[in-house]
């Protein structure tokens, strides 16, 4: 019973967050200084004819009370009636639905790969504390993480695509070829390789640093010292005692990181002209297509909240004590 309540409480927490994000998205353009019409439709408003302008005002109910506007907004949101992007000349929802899978592919492969590498290297450095290896890993990874992502991406394109010709220069797939089956998969992977590598290289430090830190902290704990006094073999102490316990704080960092994974893809997708949400957002910014910016922001935020909710549910798998607590109460 209690377990059910706890899970539900988490769910309520996330539902409130979703509601807040949705409302934030509505109020931001309306509360900012300036003409809301401009804030909502973008600067191209001056190019519109009187009738088009009327249509926009009609569409967003700008003459109604803010409350009426809000309920209309909510209704349109739920019914996926998100309006039309005037820069893409397509319904916003279909533009975004087409882009979302690419971002998910990029972001989640990055999350998984960079986390695994980060944990591996963090363990290596932490266990070798006070040795050269640790200092090299620490300074090397810090330096790499201080490089701007788009810049590294540009360099990769120059070196690997333009000069060496190993990888395609842009896009998520070959637009002019009709690949099917396995060759299609290979084509997508070839396009994925460079943007993914850039993201992975830059994301390693986000897990590496906490892992190394947590490991050093755990190594100083009494129970690790006692394990040695108990004559437990070194390898068991390392993995079952030290690494296992260091993973706990790292997992909470990981949970926070889930929220950041889509951040990186905005910039990287722009550099590689990758057809995901980030690229859409960039296109929308450069044409000041505000409705499109807003809805891509909303979609990214919702995906983040959902991923956070999922990781929250996964937490008991990492920490058995959480489950045990529920069982006993």
């Amino acid at each position, binding site marked *: 019973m209690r377990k059910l309540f706890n899970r539900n409480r988490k769910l309520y927490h996330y539902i409130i967050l979703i509601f807040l994000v949705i409302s934030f998205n509505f109020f931001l353009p309306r509360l900012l200084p300036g003409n809301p019409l401009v804030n909502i439709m973008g600067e191209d408003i001056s190019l519109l004819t009187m009738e088009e302008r009327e249509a926009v005002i009609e569409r967003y109910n700008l003459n109604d009370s803010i409350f009426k506007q809000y309920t209309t907004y909510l209704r349109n949101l739920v019914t996926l009636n998100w309006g039309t992007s005037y820069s893409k000349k397509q319904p916003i929802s279909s533009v975004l639905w087409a882009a979302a899978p690419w971002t998910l592919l990029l972001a989640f492969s990055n999350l998984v790969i960079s986390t695994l590498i980060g944990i591996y290297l963090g363990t290596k450095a932490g266990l070798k504390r006070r040795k050269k290896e640790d200092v090299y890993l620490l300074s090397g990874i810090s330096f790499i993480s201080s490089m701007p992502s788009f810049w590294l991406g540009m360099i990769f394109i120059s070196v690997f695509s333009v000069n060496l010709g190993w990888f395609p220069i842009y896009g998520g797939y070959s637009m002019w070829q009709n690949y099917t089956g396995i060759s299609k998969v290979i084509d997508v992977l070839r396009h994925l390789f460079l943007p993914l590598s850039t993201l992975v290289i830059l994301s390693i430090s986000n897990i590496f640093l906490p892992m190394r830190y947590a490991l050093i902290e755990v190594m100083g704990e009494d129970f690790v010292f006692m394990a040695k006094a*108990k*004559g437990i073999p070194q390898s068991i102490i390392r993995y079952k005692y030290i690494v296992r316990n260091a993973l706990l704080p790292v997992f909470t960092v990981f949970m926070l990181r889930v929220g950041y994974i889509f951040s990186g893809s905005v910039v990287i997708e722009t550099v590689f002209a990758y057809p995901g949400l980030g690229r859409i957002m960039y296109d929308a910014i450069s044409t000041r297509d505000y409705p499109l910016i807003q809805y891509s922001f909303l979609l990214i935020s919702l995906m983040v909240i959902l991923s956070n909710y999922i990781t929250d549910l996964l937490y008991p798998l990492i920490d058995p004590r959480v489950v045990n607590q529920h069982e006993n109460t």
Partner: protein
Amino acid sequence: MEPILKVEELKVWYGEKCKGDIIKGVSFDLNLGETLGIRGRSGSGKSTIAWAVMGMMSHLKGGMEGSILLDGKNIGNLTEKEYKKVRWKEIAIVPQAAMNSFHPMMKIKDSIGEILKIHCKITDKKQMQDKCEELMEIAHLDKKVLSYYPHKMSGGMKQRAAIAMALACEPKLLILDEATTGLDVLTEAEVLRVVKNLQRRNNMSILLISHDPRLVEVLCDKTIYIEEGVIVDHSTYHEADLLEAKAV
């Protein structure tokens, strides 16, 4: 009779040797089935002796010299690998920080089971469960504590679980380092009774480290009093205690 533990001219230091010793040449011996009390103020180096006997100085970033004879065999110069076989099978310890000495994500039965598996080569599930339950009984703990995680247990429970764990392989020598500090009087008496019974049953020798003269008086056959790394007294009550008693 050949003593079970014979320590001669033990010198122990932390950090580098040149920085000076914590223990400056201590010798004592302990007979089979007897209890030796080590007393002294905090910081006098009592616990250091315990860790030196356990061969843990290298893990404490220190070193030692002198001989430690366990059952006539010098264990002071064993390598880390050889020492791993001595620890817990022949010498076990209930440390001062017993509260924090459990793996926080392992149930008590898994912690004890791990030791049984590594040192006593017990792999059979049933046999392991029986042994764990027996140990719980010895330490006066309920069987269901076996499936607890440490964070759910009170200080007294953890202390007794630590004793159960120390007795898992029926060691020849048990070191109790302030094992009952922090327990309330009733629990303390309970724990001590358990230990005393066991000593009689297994003919086990005990090194009891405590700041408390009452405890040492009740439990020990012999006592040494350590001050600044040397033995200054062999009587149960040291002059410092008498002074303190007067002051109170």
